[in-house]
């Protein structure tokens, strides 16, 4: 009896929490299908009267900068993720299996950066990028984003390489297979799991990144959507259109979450437990 009661309490609590967590996402989706009149109606109705798609249509009308923001985000994220994957697949192997003088020191300094607040880097990065002339460019956001995600990615890849039995690569090396080819042909296919984790985390971090973008992209045409969309918030709220663009901007990470939930959780746990 008591057992049943505690179970009831636990399920109710989780139910309420889940409801609170999903409501904002559901609400913005419902709102994106409402007319302006419905949005400003007091008291409001939760469900839209009908499926009204003009909010979505207006995104594609001339003068709407959403497409530009979305394209910037896509370019920065895709390029960034590829760079993070390649660089961490190389460096992780170097740290795991090819120690050299100074490599421990390098690894320690890389992992230490994880705990330093980004605020410390902002001024130097800004001054550097200004002197290179890459402020307000996609490149100017790709480079620091890659650097910020890399320590975690290297950590995950290194742990994955360490998990592979040493005999495998030793046999290949003694057979005359070069170091590079051993890595490419034998090791890389074995760290697929780690690569997926790295890709997903790099994707979320870069797609959702706000602080660097706010600092380094001050002109609207260079902004990714995390910063660009906040410009839609003005004296006059066009919340119907804004909710439509928010829904579209949240879709890519949510779709990937639905597919790769297991790897996302694994990545957070792995990255943390061994840290």
């Amino acid at each position, binding site marked *: 009896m008591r057992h049943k009661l505690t179970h009831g309490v636990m399920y109710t609590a989780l139910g309420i929490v889940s409801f609170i967590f999903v409501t904002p996402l559901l609400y913005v989706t419902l709102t994106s299908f409402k007319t302006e009149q419905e949005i400003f109606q007091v008291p*409001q109705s939760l469900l839209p009267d009908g499926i009204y798609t003009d909010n979505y249509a207006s995104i594609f009308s001339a003068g709407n900068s959403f497409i530009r923001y979305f394209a910037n985000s896509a370019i920065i994220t895709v390029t960034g993720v590829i760079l993070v994957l390649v660089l961490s697949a190389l460096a992780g192997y170097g740290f795991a299996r090819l120690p050299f003088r100074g490599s421990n020191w390098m690894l320690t300094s890389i992992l230490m950066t994880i705990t330093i607040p980004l605020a410390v880097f902002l001024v130097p990065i800004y001054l550097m990028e200004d002197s290179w002339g890459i402020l307000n460019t996609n490149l100017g956001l790709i480079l620091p984003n890659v650097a910020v995600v890399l320590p975690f990615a290297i950590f995950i890849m290194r742990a994955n390489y360490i998990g592979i039995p040493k005999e495998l690569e030793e046999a290949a090396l003694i057979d005359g297979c070069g170091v590079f080819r051993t890595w490419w042909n034998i090791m890389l296919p074995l760290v697929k799991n780690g690569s997926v984790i790295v890709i997903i985390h790099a994707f979320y971090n870069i797609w959702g990144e706000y602080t660097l973008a706010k600092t380094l992209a*001050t002109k609207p045409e260079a902004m990714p959507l995390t910063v660009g969309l906040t410009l839609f918030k003005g004296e006059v709220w066009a919340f119907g259109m804004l909710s439509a663009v928010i829904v579209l901007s949240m879709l890519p990470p949510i779709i990937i*979450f*639905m597919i790769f939930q297991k790897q996302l959780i694994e990545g957070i746990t792995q990255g943390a437990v061994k840290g």
Partner: protein
Amino acid sequence: MADSSIISRKHLSIKTLNRRKQWYGFFFVVPAFLFIFSFMLYPVVYSFYMSLHNYNYVYDTSPTFAGIGNFLKAIQELSFRTALKNTIVFSFFYFILVMGLSLTIALILFHIKRLHGLFRTAIFLPIVVPVSLSALVFLWILQENYGLLNYLLRDVLGLTALAKPWLNVGSTAMVSIIGVSLWATIGFETILFLGGLQTLSREMLEAAEVDGANGFKRIFYVIFPNLKETYILTGIWAILHGLKVFVEPNVMTNGGPGNSTLVVYQEVYYNAFNRFEMGYASAEAYILAILALAFSLLNMYINRAKD
């Protein structure tokens, strides 16, 4: 040398192989290291240099040495002190709530068997939504006249007295920002706690049950004391997250009303990129980093010392 060329590639001596591996190791690591060096390690040193100088990026041709002047100025200036106070208030409540709620949710998820996947999906989902976008959604939800929260309080639950202009009053604006931060990060901390719970050995939990430690007894005397390593981890993460809060106040309140939700990160941003006082902003950022380090070490010390 002539001899070594006779040795076929198939029989490389161990020594040559090792030396070659070292060089390869260096070249495997260097590209990534260059990125991290240019955008993180060098900036850490450079902003320390900057913090000891006066440098207005618009007016000054070059930095002039100021010693610890910028640090002294920061701790005396009202806006920085307000920002520091707000950041610490935010971090304090955020820390306690995120630790308590995430641990509770993780414990429940650990115990129940049915609907596991559904609950997990709902609770983890906010992790992947860009924070600046959820801040925009919450800005609307908290809106006084048309917002969802006041609608629910006033028209659905009939609690008219509780309906408030949430973001227009200092205290409730702070509460709102803490709430949005919790919404966005509880899932992440829950995953960390679940990871910790899963490392507890089955034998230990079963032995406790045999000894008659059931339900709450088991949680308080067996599970809680054995999660120390997890507290260190989740604690450091929560401390860092609290001290570096930026997106929520920047998007939702812009530090207002008045200066009631102004945080250190915004101060740094404002001084660096609106006033272009690069030296002063660097000093403020350094104070934040030192605080983060100090609290992280304190958290580690408390959890390790009990042994």
